């Protein structure tokens, strides 16, 4: 399937061997073409083996045990945190709070920092391209607290309207919360610049990094975000674990999130004292094996090199947009390849996205169809749903060709 003269930045033949699922035949003679990484990425053997190994050799609860396994499990759990901190260039691993996922990270900020700091009438700026996970927590706070929400508009090209952003900042917002990379349009927002402007206006900034951390080099110290949220499962790691990064002073000033074991320094019958960072925000037995897998996923990405991954995805995306554009009836959403990550959302005239996805599935091609948890964005473009193909470090141009051929099959069936 792959030729040696394929001008790829990464060695795709070797990389694909790392992902056993990519070899799966869904039905006799129909091999998986996985183009749904934006929903969740596939996992390399290194991650699968590390988690398997943890359960076979090292499984124990962390932090309070003194026996060999408890020490070992604690070391593995905390070492992973160190590597994740290094991966995003955080000053300290204490700033890396394990959560369940990006959604929980955003909710953590909404439940602790925001409830301690926002009063009725305070303005929170979001954008029209947010995932439901960066909308609904603020809707809930609006209902409870009477905060005000306003939105940076999305242009027809799928970019944020930064002129309007400037005007919104003049209204003295307390918080600006936006996605670094859109899960529908693929747009990579100018996060550093947006954060700088928000800080000048005196606002705290939360960034949804669910789609950016897996695909770009992100540097917490360079970006200067106050909070940054992401998930392991979109970056070759397991489900069930994510991160909230925060600035130390902010995290220390915040009330705890969930109450329970591990997040305390001392408990009396009628009171408690919260633990130090990061444990203050990690109540109860966490996802330990998942943390171990997360650490290995970060190692895997580091070894390939985030710049190489980004360059490979750019090459695939550029090719995919070019090929998809050629198909009569296909309409693409989002900016050009130079302004976006590996996402191609499209509609096909006369055929519902569900039918597109279902017919592609007959050829083993996995794409997503629906509103991708961004209903307001779809409303903005006047469409109920799109089909979305997304690309990662293991995808090839040949797979893009399979997608294009598949879309021609759909057209023929509905012709």
């Amino acid at each position, binding site marked *: 399937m792959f030729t040696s003269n394929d001008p790829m930045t990464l060695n795709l033949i070797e990389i694909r061997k790392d992902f056993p699922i990519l070899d799966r035949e869904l039905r006799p003679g129909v091999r998986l073409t996985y183009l749904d990484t934006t929903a969740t990425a596939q996992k390399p053997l290194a991650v699968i083996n590390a988690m398997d190994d943890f359960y076979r050799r090292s499984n124990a609860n962390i932090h309070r045990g003194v026996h060999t396994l408890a020490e070992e499990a604690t070391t593995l759990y905390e070492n992973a945190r160190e590597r994740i901190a290094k991966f995003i260039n955080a000053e300290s691993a204490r700033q890396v709070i394990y959560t369940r996922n990006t959604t929980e990270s955003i909710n953590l900020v909404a439940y602790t920092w925001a409830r301690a700091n926002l009063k009725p009438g305070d303005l929170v700026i979001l954008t029209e391209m947010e995932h439901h996970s960066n909308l609904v927590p603020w809707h809930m706070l609006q209902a409870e607290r009477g905060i005000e929400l306003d939105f940076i508009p999305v242009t027809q090209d799928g970019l944020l309207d930064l002129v309007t952003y400037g005007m919104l900042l003049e209204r003295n917002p307390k918080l600006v919360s936006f996605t670094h990379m859109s899960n529908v349009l693929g747009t990579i927002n100018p996060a550093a610049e947006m954060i700088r402007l928000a800080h000048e206006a005196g606002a705290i900034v939360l960034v949804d990094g669910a789609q950016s951390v897996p695909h770009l080099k992100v540097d917490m110290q360079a970006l200067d975000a106050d909070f940054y949220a992401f998930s392991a499962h979109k970056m070759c790691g397991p489900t069930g674990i994510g991160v909230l990064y925060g600035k130390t002073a902010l995290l220390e000033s915040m009330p705890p999130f969930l109450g329970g074991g591990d997040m305390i320094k001392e408990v009396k019958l009628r009171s408690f004292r919260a633990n130090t960072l990061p444990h203050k925000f990690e109540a109860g037995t966490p996802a330990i094996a998942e943390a171990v897998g997360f650490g290995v996923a970060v190692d895997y990405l580091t070894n390939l090199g985030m710049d190489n991954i980004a360059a490979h995805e750019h090459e695939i995306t550029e090719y995919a947009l070019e090929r998809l554009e050629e198909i009569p009836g296909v309409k693409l959403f989002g900016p050009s390849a130079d302004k976006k990550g590996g996402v191609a959302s499209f509609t096909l005239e006369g055929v519902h996205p*569900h*039918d597109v996805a279902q017919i592609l599935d007959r050829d083993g091609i996995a794409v997503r169809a*629906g*509103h991708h948890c961004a*209903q307001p964005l779809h409303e903005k473009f006047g469409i*109920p749903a799109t089909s979305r193909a997304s690309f990662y470090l293991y995808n090839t141009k040949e797979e893009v060709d399979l997608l294009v051929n598949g879309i021609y099959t759909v057209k023929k069936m509905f012709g």
Partner: protein
Amino acid sequence: MDDLYREVIIEHYKNPSYRGKLDPHDISFADNNPLCGDHIQIDLRVSPDGVVTDARFDGHGCAISQASADLLIESIIGKPLEEVKKLNKESVLELLGIELGPVRLKCALLSLKVLKAGVYGLQEASDSLVE
């Protein structure tokens, strides 16, 4: 798998016989499938003795949801409401002549859910109507 898009379904999707609205009507109900935004409205005319004399559906969605709506409407015209109330998941699958996984089943059953919520005079359509 190929059965999912057998000709009869594509045909009912592309050229539905009962797409439209009835004005006046005796019963009208509409609902969405929140997963994919499919939308179906069904209008019925009912005779004094409780027989469906005419019916139409309107809306948008995938081939499965729209074809099943067209087939369902076709099947209930001339039937007493009491019989319409007895329709269930199996009735719709029989009309479509295919088997469906859990996700697409929701598409196929949207029209029945809307129809029964209307016939029972409910405020809101519930999944329990089509189980």
